[in-house]
């Protein structure tokens, strides 16, 4: 049974999305429990596969339809994506638990069944992108994840359909660029399997076709992971999306994109291709510097909490880019660890933003006075997640920044190092402004606490608080156990060449 876990990880959510839609038409209330059970099963599959990888030290291979690669499609779980899969599964499950009350609040009743079906499809896409070992299969799953994202975002308030449409135009551009890249590589190698490509491409690195294919792949992946400057789709779409959707998308979608980038740069292509043959990592690094500075400043200028968090996502992706650009073991360790950490940090932040919007009825940070008294747990989670973004030990954010910092020092990239440190400082200003307002605003309380007069204040429900608290706990635990994670998993995920 355990042999089938890699494929079950994709097939089960896919099939369940159909069933949720059908059953949901008859009995609406069954959608949520089905979603929860499916995601819990996925956690089991991901955990089981990762455990196998850790205990045997070998990647787990699954050949779809028993066709041997490179003719058949192959699913692979190794140290790199096993870790990402487990993180994905945990955050997706927590997001789903959180989404229960949010969905009841934000989505019209008739749309619940389709909503959960799309939710499952999105999970399918995310899991699939991570677990697949075939380039074209990745495109398919990428598109599955993308268009469920477009649809989910389109369910939001106000200008959400418009934002979703613009996202779609941009996102399709990216996906098509990726497809073109795969096409060029296919022309010259005849293979679509990642491991196979690695073998066949090695003598072909001088070819222009390979370089162009590589460039297209990077552009496509860059759009999907919201790398500066093709990140412009992110702020509008994630801000206007319903809370239940942004909690799923924000932590996960861009991080899976980052994972794909690392796969392409370091597994499909030999690391030396991107570091020495083409100055790809250099270019990525300098663009990341611009991205971090730009989005940190944009984040500072926002008064809407959710929009600020969106720019923060772009900053975090920039940090991952710097780790990749350092081109050494330490930097890449930092990037991979940051992918894992950022999932939990962003999950915590977006959960609090959603809860504040739902109960405190505002997203404008100017109006946060008195927040800690009305929503103490939410404020505490916001503080922990914020400290992690800033990089205060013992939260996990500090440790990934530590490795990133060491990586830039080893690579003697002083500008990258300075940007990392400056970014931390800008993030600190960002968050402490919010902390100050929610904890210390001078009395008396302003008459308008962001609520319509006459409404009773509802406390956040258990199903919202528990995922938040768990996320905060993970942020600290990941920090404390960072040594083990790096030693037993990430150390093997980084290619031997470094």
């Amino acid at each position, binding site marked *: 049974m355990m042999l089938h876990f890699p494929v079950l990880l994709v097939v089960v959510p896919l099939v369940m999305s159909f069933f949720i839609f059908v059953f949901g038409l008859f009995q609406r209330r069954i959608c949520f429990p089905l979603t929860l059970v499916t995601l819990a099963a996925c956690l089991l599959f991901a955990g089981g596969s990762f455990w196998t990888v850790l205990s045997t030290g070998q990647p787990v291979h699954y050949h779809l339809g028993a066709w041997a690669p490179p003719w058949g499609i192959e699913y692979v779980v190794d140290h790199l994506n096993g870790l990402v899969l487990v993180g994905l599964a945990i955050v997706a499950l927590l997001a789903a638990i959180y989404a229960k009350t949010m969905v009841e609040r934000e989505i019209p009743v008739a749309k619940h069944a389709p909503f959960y079906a799309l939710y499952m499809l999105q999970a399918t896409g995310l899991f699939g992108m991570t677990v697949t070992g075939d380039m074209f299969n990745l495109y*398919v799953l990428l598109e599955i994840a993308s268009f469920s994202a*477009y649809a989910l975002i389109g369910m939001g308030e106000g200008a959400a359909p*418009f934002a979703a*449409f613009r996202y*779609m135009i941009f996102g399709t551009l990216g996906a*098509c660029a990726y497809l073109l890249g795969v096409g060029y590589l296919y022309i010259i190698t005849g293979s*679509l399997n990642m491991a196979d490509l690695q073998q066949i491409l090695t003598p072909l690195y001088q070819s222009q076709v390979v370089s162009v294919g590589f460039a297209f792949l990077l552009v496509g992946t860059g759009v999907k992971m919201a790398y500066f400057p093709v990140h412009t789709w992110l702020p509008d779409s994630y801000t206007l999306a319903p809370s239940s959707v942004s909690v799923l998308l924000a932590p996960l979608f861009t991080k899976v994109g980052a994972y794909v980038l690392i796969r392409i740069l370091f597994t499909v292509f030999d690391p030396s291709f991107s570091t020495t043959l083409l100055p790809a990592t250099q270019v990525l690094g300098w663009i990341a510097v611009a991205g971090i500075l730009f989005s940190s400043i944009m984040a500072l200028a926002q008064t809407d909490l959710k929009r600020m968090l969106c720019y923060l996502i772009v900053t975090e992706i920039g940090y991952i880019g710097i780790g990749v650009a350092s081109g050494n073991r330490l930097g890449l360790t930092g990037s991979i660890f940051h992918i894992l950490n950022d999932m939990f940090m962003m999950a915590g932040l977006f959960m609090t933003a959603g809860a504040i919007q739902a109960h405190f009825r505002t997203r404008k940070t100017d109006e946060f006075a008195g927040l800690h008294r009305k929503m103490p747990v939410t404020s505490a989670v916001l503080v922990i997640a914020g400290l992690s973004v800033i990089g205060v030990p013992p939260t996990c954010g500090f440790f990934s920044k530590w490795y990133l910092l060491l990586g830039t020092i080893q690579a003697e990239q002083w500008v990258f190092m300075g940007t990392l440190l400056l970014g931390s400082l800008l993030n600190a200003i960002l968050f402490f402004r919010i902390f100050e307002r929610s904890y210390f605003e001078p009395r008396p309380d302003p008459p308008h606490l962001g609520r319509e007069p006459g409404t009773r204040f509802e406390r956040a429900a258990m199903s919202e608080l528990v995922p938040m608290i768990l996320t905060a706990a993970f942020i600290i635990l990941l920090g404390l156990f960072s040594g083990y994670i790096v030693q037993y998993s990430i150390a093997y995920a980084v290619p031997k060449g470094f």
Partner: protein
Amino acid sequence: MTDLILSNYNYWVYVVLIMIGFYGMMAKNNLMKKLIGMNIFQWSIILFYISIGAKKGGTIPVVDPSLHPAIRALDYVNPLPHVLMLTAIVVGVATTGIALTLLILIYRKYGTLEEDEILEALKK
């Protein structure tokens, strides 16, 4: 020069189509036209893939065991790009479907599909 164009005409076709699609996506104001541009963009890539599978003198990739005991790859058009593009077409159709739904929602809300008018309405 002519050789460069003539022997690689499939690439030139796809490049031209991509540029048309790209132009539509970026430069046009009407959201429907953007969508059409996006479609052209996607289909041109599909054309590109299919074109790379073609072989001179190759026939459709259906094997008749009675005629040919051994298979010579040269005789058959490469089936793999066709298979891949079936999937891509499905993806394109699904994306178009979602896009049209979003356009209906936008039209209901703003009464127009011109991007600049919608942006004006949003500012208020």
